[in-house]
């Protein structure tokens, strides 16, 4: 992460250029035995090539569902009710499943949390990487093997020639995640979505994987969406951040600005409830209560019940996602005043 400082500067990219990937007004509902439940409510996100968008939120805030829906990967009961998902000028919600299948794993790739579950236990690691090379790039078996070994080298797996023929159970957690990343970048995707890629890993391995992702992003000039619940990971790896709470994006900002001056009361609460390794705090300032489950989502501000700054304006109508500056937006009636 030695040269990460250069990519941090928020002014490097102005918000005016067309983003590579943009989600507009996306809503997702799930049909449950108790009726329809809206889990994602008019979400807007965008990311440009070469940038990392950190999508942060607590469990159940809808961050994974948003990305799964955008790639047409929702489970049978999930439905997209509105919105557009623009990728390279095309609306992914309008294209056929066949075209989508061509796109997934090729131009858009995903890495999931638990590599041990995502890998097929009865196929060799090498076979699993070669598969997408043969499918999407039409390589011969020999060519795919050669390329797969190159990819294993690229993601830092030592002794890649022998490792090619090994099975997932012979790989440690960190190595499996590297293999998953090799698989994801096999066709040089323009967009990589990493859903909690380091959550199941130890900190020393997490640091290695984050470094690898950031190196690959530069090397391949990808756009990266990093989904995580860990603000430490966000601070470490993201350029821009979108904070989600209860199915909505509540704040959007470049990473430095978000940590320096959070605008939404929830973001502020989240930042001050973190235990810190770099300083001693007498007492953690916890946010009271818990995030509501999707069945109890209200139209007004969903953080109201846990917020110390709410009044009558907060309930009833959804707080508008207001533009504060060229790069910042917040959905709060009483944003934090900068001091």
């Amino acid at each position: 992460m030695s040269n990460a400082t250069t990519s941090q500067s928020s002014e490097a990219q102005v918000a005016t250029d067309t983003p590579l990937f943009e989600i507009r007004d996306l809503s997702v509902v799930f049909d449950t035995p108790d009726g329809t439940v809206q889990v994602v409510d008019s979400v807007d996100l965008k990311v440009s090539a070469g940038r990392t968008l950190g999508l942060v939120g607590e469990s159940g805030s809808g961050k994974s569902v948003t990305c799964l829906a955008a790639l047409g990967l929702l489970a049978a009961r999930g439905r997209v009710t509105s919105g557009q998902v623009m990728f390279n000028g095309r609306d992914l919600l309008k294209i056929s499943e066949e075209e989508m299948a061509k796109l997934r794993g090729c131009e858009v790739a995903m890495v999931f949390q638990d590599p041990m579950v995502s890998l097929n236990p009865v196929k060799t690691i090498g076979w699993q990487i070669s598969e997408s090379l043969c499918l999407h790039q039409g390589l011969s078996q020999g060519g795919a093997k050669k390329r797969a070994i190159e990819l294993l080298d690229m993601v830092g797996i030592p002794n890649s020639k022998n490792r090619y023929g090994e099975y997932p159970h012979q790989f440690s957690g960190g190595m499996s995640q590297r293999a998953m990343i090799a698989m994801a970048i096999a066709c040089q995707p323009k967009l990589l979505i990493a859903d909690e890629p380091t959550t199941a890993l130890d900190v020393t391995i997490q640091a290695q994987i984050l470094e690898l992702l950031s190196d690959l992003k530069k090397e391949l000039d990808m756009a990266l969406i990093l989904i995580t619940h860990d603000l430490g990971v966000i601070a470490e790896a993201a350029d821009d951040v979108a904070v989600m709470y209860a199915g909505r994006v509540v704040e959007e900002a470049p990473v430095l600005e978000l940590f320096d001056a959070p605008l939404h009361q929830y973001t502020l609460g989240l930042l001050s409830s973190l235990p810190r390794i770099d300083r001693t705090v007498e007492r953690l300032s916890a946010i009271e209560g818990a995030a509501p489950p999707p069945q109890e989502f209200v139209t007004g501000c969903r953080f109201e019940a846990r917020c110390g700054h709410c009044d009558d304006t907060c309930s009833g109508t959804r707080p508008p996602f207001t533009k504060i500056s060229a790069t910042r937006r917040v959905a709060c009636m009483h944003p934090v005043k900068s001091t």
Partner: protein
Amino acid sequence: MKKAIDTNTKAVKPEILMEVRDLVRHFIGPRTSFFGKRKIAHAINGVSFDLYAGETLGLVGESGCGKSTTGQLILNLMEPTSGSVTFLGKDITTLNKQEWRSMRREMQLVFQNPLGALNPRLTIGSQIREPLDIHNVGDADGRNAIVLEMFEAVSLPPHLLERYPHQLSGGQQQRVVIARALIISPKLVVCDESVSALDVSVQAQVVNLLVDLQKKLGLTYLFITHDLSVVRHISNRIAVMYLGRIVELADSETLLENPLHPYTRALISAVPVPDPRARASRATIKGEPPNPFNPPSGCAFNARCPHADDKCRTVLPDFRELAEKHMVACHHAEALVGNQKPNLS
């Protein structure tokens, strides 16, 4: 080790609640060939420490380093291969069933996943009451009163007593588990990743609760976690484990501000700090922890250590007191004293 601790005790005179000495636990691996020998994993390889009454000792390390096994061994949930655990003056590894039963009351365990620890078919109230029934505390009315009192102490509204575990949120479930553990007033509570599964905003609530309860009830915690940020907040002292051994043990501030073992340094620098300006300071270590079935000779960290030399590859470093109340197991720790701390901010 013992000598070093004794000198400390004279200075401060804290009461020792538990003494763990040379704890070893082996696990026998699966049979790989019909006639071949089964391999032995040295999960715990000579762990010694003291727990002082009323303190919180944080036990940190990566997965597979033996921190949870240590927790289970000191609660006698697993028999050690060798070594002793002295609690309230008795070696608990040699107790018979009856003696053990009365001793059991004094120590409790809080796990990571509350939903897994709670019985899905019993109401919250009856689960919290169960320990009182088992240990025959008071009469029926008295027990219900204690349950209510405990419920209030973990800040849960009384109407939840009639609910079932699945009707509660994750944070509430963990409060229930804590209430159940504390209701028979134990002296020692082992928290094994107790707050790791919770979202940050809820995690802060539970951490605060644990701190409050400790002050109120005079509890001693062994706080097992992989999360160094939480451990800094909650612990008085921290022990860092690597492949079945404690490699460094010191007061929390000392350990995190002035770590002496290269592994501790690596671990601290790998923790992502929620401050984007702190990015560049990272020094990642290469490689992964070694396999406990096939531990390296000498210092277990030698393959990943930037300071390793021939001595490290052959001779196991002693766990010694290098500075006051600061124990470390590294041949080169002297060279690291005063050497600037890992850049955190």
